[in-house]
């Protein structure tokens, strides 16, 4: 099958990539990570081998862009004695997913990533292991631990209760 128009790729895989970006870098930086992911993908798209797993390809790019963002944010961070009060970084007040992003952001990195890749992006553990390192079994355990932790810390959006 020939390459689809890129607009179709954006429409089909855009939501998954956005979920991955939100889970890895949080809702605020997610837009930038998403945009950089799709711009990089658009640049490389004409050379993508036919029959490629487009979603796994995009998630790989998204992970790289998200890591770049986390590194950039870490470089910008300046230690202070007393953290200032800052506006919410977990979405708009009343936005139903805000608490979930906060709970996700509180997970250790490996758990957060494996939960994002498996439960939000729908990747199998073998592919996740290739992305985050370690064995598929370790990825499965990290995701299970992450979900168990979320069950303890996240009480659900108001209309899920």
């Amino acid at each position, binding site marked *: 099958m*020939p*390459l689809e128009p890129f*607009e179709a790729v*954006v*429409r089909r895989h855009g939501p998954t990539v*956005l979920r991955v970006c939100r889970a890895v870098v949080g809702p605020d930086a997610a*837009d930038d990570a998403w*945009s950089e992911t799709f711009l990089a993908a658009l640049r490389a*798209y004409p050379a993508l081998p036919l029959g490629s797993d487009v979603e796994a390809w995009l998630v790989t790019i998204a992970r790289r862009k998200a890591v770049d963002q986390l590194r950039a944010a870490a470089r910008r961070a300046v230690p202070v004695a007393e953290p200032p009060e800052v506006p919410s970084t977990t979405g708009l007040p009343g936005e139903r997913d805000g608490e979930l992003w906060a709970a996700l952001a509180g997970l250790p990195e490996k758990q957060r990533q494996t939960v994002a890749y498996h439960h939000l992006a729908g990747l199998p553990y073998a592919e996740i292991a290739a992305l985050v390192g370690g064995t598929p079994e370790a990825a499965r355990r990290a995701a299970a631990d992450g979900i168990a932790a979320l069950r303890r810390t996240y009480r659900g959006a108001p209309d899920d209760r």
Partner: protein
Amino acid sequence: MTADLDRLAARLARAADDAGLLDVAFTTVDTPVGPLLLAATGQGLVRVAYAAEDHDAVLQSLADRISPRVLRAPARLDPAVRQLEEYFAGRRRAFDLPLDLRLSAGFRRDVLTRLREVGYGRTASYAALAAAAGSPRAVRAVGTACATNPLPVVVPCHRVVRSDGALGDYVGGVAAKRTLLSLEAAA
């Protein structure tokens, strides 16, 4: 999520254009002859398509023949949309747009060039057009050139009719041809 995606996709289209990666921009516009798909390369308007041609299939063919870097990016089509709206309102008689004729070659392209000389509100026969293109016996080939016109409405193949006065076929359907000719006769 849908609103987020629309906003992000629009932002991506702008960034792609700035980065020189927007090989084919497209949008759709509602008209009295149904929704028209408009597509443009950096050189100009490259495709106008009726709904009957199946817009998804047309976009796939643009991806195959020009580049798969195809995005919904209305900004590049703003002048074309504005001029089409003026045309359908009876306020425009000629289109002043850069055209990219790469989807048409050889004799068909010659016919398209001749077509642009058939003025607003007038008609020409397939036979007359064949003669004008230098091949008086190529009447059938003129018909094919019109049927495969990548830029209907803007390149006015709707002004080509049969020598016996019948409307003849049209890429957008005979009803659309009648609508365009009535519009031009009334204005």
